[in-house]
């Protein structure tokens, strides 16, 4: 049975925060983000990864594929403000939480207007800070494809939302 080595588990553990944020930016709400993260980890545990794989890039790739699979199977995309607030480990003010979640919901609605490949590419780079080369590895496409997907995503967002987003 495939399994992860200790170093791979350690690398994956260190990656969980970034992966969770990636999940959140894809799904748009905390509950789905946690579900997607769990699915990702379970797949990694179930199928393992090659010894020479870069654990972070591999994990993002698995996560991206899991999200696409989920979209295909459910055809349900929740992009609306979540009603329930999950209790976090930190204790920001209620007002801060409300403002943050409203903003996440608004941004998620914007991102939901993008084709999924553009959304993933933009999220990897703009949210997770990946380079084009890293995003290309994760999405298994040429760097030029990443470049054009991100540019098209931004073009669409600018044309739809212009400069009215400054707060």
């Amino acid at each position: 049975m495939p399994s992860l080595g200790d170093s791979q588990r350690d690398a994956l553990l260190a990656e969980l925060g970034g992966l969770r944020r990636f999940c959140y930016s894809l799904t748009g709400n905390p509950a789905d983000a946690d579900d997607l993260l769990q699915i990702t980890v379970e797949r990694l545990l179930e199928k393992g990864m090659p010894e020479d794989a870069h654990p972070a890039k591999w994990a993002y790739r698995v996560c991206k594929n899991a999200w696409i699979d989920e979209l295909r199977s459910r055809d349900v995309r929740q992009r609306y403000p979540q009603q329930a607030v999950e209790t976090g480990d930190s204790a920001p003010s209620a007002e801060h939480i409300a403002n943050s979640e409203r903003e996440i919901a608004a941004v998620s609605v914007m991102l939901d207007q993008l084709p999924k490949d553009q959304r993933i590419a933009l999220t990897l780079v703009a949210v997770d800070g990946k380079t084009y080369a890293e995003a290309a590895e994760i999405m298994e496409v040429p760097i030029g494809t990443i470049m054009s997907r991100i540019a098209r995503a931004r073009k669409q967002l600018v044309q739809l939302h212009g400069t009215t987003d400054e707060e």
Partner: protein
Amino acid sequence: MALLMKNEVRMTMNNQDYELLSQYIDGELDATATAQLQHRLDQDVSLRQSLQAMQALNTRVHAAFLNTDTVPGHIPDLLGKKQSNVVAFPQINRQSGWGFAIAASLLAASGLLMFQNGGQMAGSFPEQDALISSVLDQAPSRGEGWDTLEDGSDFRPVLSFQTVSGQWCREYLLHSEASTGRGVACHTDGEWMTAVFSSQSQPGTTTEYRPAGANDADAVAHFIADQAASVALSASEETQMIAKDWQ
């Protein structure tokens, strides 16, 4: 004004322009292409406005998800690892910034300002500030290339912004043989004083520019997210501020 900007974008922008601006925002242009684009930006109002609009959206998207990296406790358990609830201070010169995300976000969320460099507080970098001040006074932000400081370190301003309290601040990269650091210095009483500095090992080549937050959420990214009043200055706005000595 917004409508006019949007119309101008539609009239003048083509797909290549969007790709160029997008690469510029992401620090993916080489030095030559960056210089060429900056020259165009200085002359082309529509291009500049499009860049501002794209930067604003980019900043918004990035900031929205900054603090969404808190992992439910049961997921680390799946990996057979227990995750402590105690927020640990990050290590200096971490090999990867990724593991720092949770601690950084929790601290930022609780309103604490954290400094990676051994917990030093703002104003604790007098020697460094003395070296970088003249560059921050005059040099425009850019995605490629380095200025050489008197001690031989490589230095690059990467963006400028105004804080909610009206102070002007600039994010920079500082690279020496030992490590690469990212910081923000703010203009105070005519001098630049580092407000936050994150020491880290930079993956990739030394010429590779990675935007704020590129190594995951860190103290610098949180500082900017917390303190910036709006989006980063455009090239022309920054040029004006340089001409006015950041007053």
